[in-house]
């Protein structure tokens, strides 16, 4: 039922065109705010923001190669109860997929929400992004977009995408986006593809009087090629990571720099517990307990329980991992957390025929069961 529509690009300027599109959406009578990445007035920092005044949309920057936070958790705060007003949210595909996981856990609602997905061109690691804007203080996003969409590759100014983005086979918004903005394989100097995917999306687009277009073969080829490239990188990453963590000694080496700061869990959009057991009193052990542990092997690495934390998080959250890479982004010690999670998640998700973020109709595997399944798991 999706309709393929287009907007014409003004003065060959994609960003200005997108801002204008968002302005038209925000100015619709029933939409009170738009949640979208914004270049903050201070520094060149990009952060999601809730915008109600369309004048401030001239700093909207949804394609900057910066991804400081996965917006799914923020959207869950905005939608967990009805505010009585409708908002639109412009999100990367992995943010929508993470939000889908939160919706399944009843940590968000879509009743008063319009989800606008945008083709993802990827992003740099946090630190790399700041190096990049320092080198290119003016028009850095434009430089990045040009470099990616003209096929010159993802490296802009010698800085490459974050590993999570290089391994991401989902550059296009998932099906539950109301509207999807298409850029890959599109002649973005002249037009942008707008797909209205749901009836709510159709309704908005109708009011905007967008003209129809057709999905071209170029679009399909470009997307297919990109996905194939990403899968190749991903599978190599899986194989390398498997070799690097396939016993406790190696896993210990992999996580040796971890200081149990738990930033990775705070940054993870699908680490869904309101209170994590690892920050409760359960782990505030008696001093004598540490001594007891130390005496067993003559040494206890402090802080303790590092592997316990990561393996438990793998058990609790790998099923919902969307591969957004925020865990790695948040780590102060450059531990490749995303690689570990995606690699393990590939097996845990496929063991249950599950794919995080794919569909609202698929319940989280650990919330359901069948009577006659996995019979081989139990010995009788």
């Amino acid at each position, binding site marked *: 039922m999706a309709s393929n529509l287009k907007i014409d690009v003004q003065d060959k300027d994609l960003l200005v065109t997108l801002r204008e599109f968002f302005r038209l959406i925000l100015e619709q009578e029933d939409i009170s705010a738009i949640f979208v990445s914004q270049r903050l007035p201070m520094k060149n920092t990009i952060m999601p923001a809730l915008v109600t005044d369309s004048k401030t949309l001239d700093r909207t920057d949804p394609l900057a190669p910066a991804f400081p936070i996965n917006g799914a958790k923020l959207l869950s705060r905005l939608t967990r109860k009805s505010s009585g007003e409708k908002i639109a949210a412009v999100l990367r595909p992995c943010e929508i997929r993470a939000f889908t996981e939160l919706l399944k856990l009843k940590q968000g609602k879509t009743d008063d929400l319009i989800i606008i997905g945008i083709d993802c061109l990827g992003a740099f690691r946090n630190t790399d992004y700041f190096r990049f804007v320092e080198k290119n203080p003016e028009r850095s996003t434009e430089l990045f977009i040009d470099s990616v969409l003209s096929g010159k590759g993802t490296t802009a100014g010698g800085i490459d995408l974050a590993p999570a983005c290089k391994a991401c086979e989902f550059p296009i918004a998932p099906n539950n986006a109301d509207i999807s903005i298409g850029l890959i394989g599109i002649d973005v100097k002249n037009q942008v593809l707008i797909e209205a995917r749901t009836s709510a999306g159709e309704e908005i687009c109708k009011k905007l009087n967008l003209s129809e277009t057709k999905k071209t073969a170029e679009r399909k080829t470009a997307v297919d090629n990109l996905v194939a490239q990403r899968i190749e990188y991903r599978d190599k990453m899986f194989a390398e990571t*498997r070799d690097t*963590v*396939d*016993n*406790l*000694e*190696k*896993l*210990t080496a992999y*996580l*040796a720099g*971890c200081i149990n700061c738990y930033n990775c869990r705070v940054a993870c959009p699908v680490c869904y517990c309101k209170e994590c*057991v690892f920050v409760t009193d359960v782990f505030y052990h008696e001093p004598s307990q540490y001594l007891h542990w130390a005496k067993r*092997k003559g*040494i206890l*690495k402090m802080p*303790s329980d*590092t*592997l*316990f934390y990561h*393996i*438990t998080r*793998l*058990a*609790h959250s*790998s*099923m919902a991992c969307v591969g957004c890479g925020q865990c790695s982004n948040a780590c102060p010690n450059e531990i490749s957390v995303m690689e570990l999670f995606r*690699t*393990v998640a590939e*097996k*845990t998700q496929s*063991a*249950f025929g599950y794919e995080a973020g794919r569909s609202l109709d698929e319940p989280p*595997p*650990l919330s359901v*069961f*069948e*009577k006659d*399944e*996995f019979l081989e*798991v*139990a*010995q*009788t």
Partner: protein
Amino acid sequence: MEDFEPVIVAFVCNWCTYTAADLAGTSRLSYPKNIRLIRVMCTGMVDPQYVIKALLEGADGVLVSGCHPGDCHYINGNYKARRRIKLLKTILPQIGFEQERLKLTWIGASDGIRFAEIMRELVDQLTEIGQSQAKLKMVI
């Protein structure tokens, strides 16, 4: 490694396997002394992290044992447990724990004999594969 005695941590359901273990004891059935029984109200309350902690602390094997399908006192706790064990059996081998180190069984309350048998079997299997990597290596 000849005198290696594996340590097994067993999370057993109060309503069935725990009773079976008791029965095995009172009927003077011999079963290996390597087992540390932890009584839980249902296998459905065994969070994956209990299993992970036991293995990281150096248990050579972990057993989770509850009521037969259809017999769970809380209706479906054992079905949920089965999914969690499936999950763990997908994760743990990826970091080097052999499949044999985690076992799920259904042992009814009157099955003292079966309980003793399964314990012996488990001890044999674990003796064969040897000490857990967690005991040998520094675990951070």
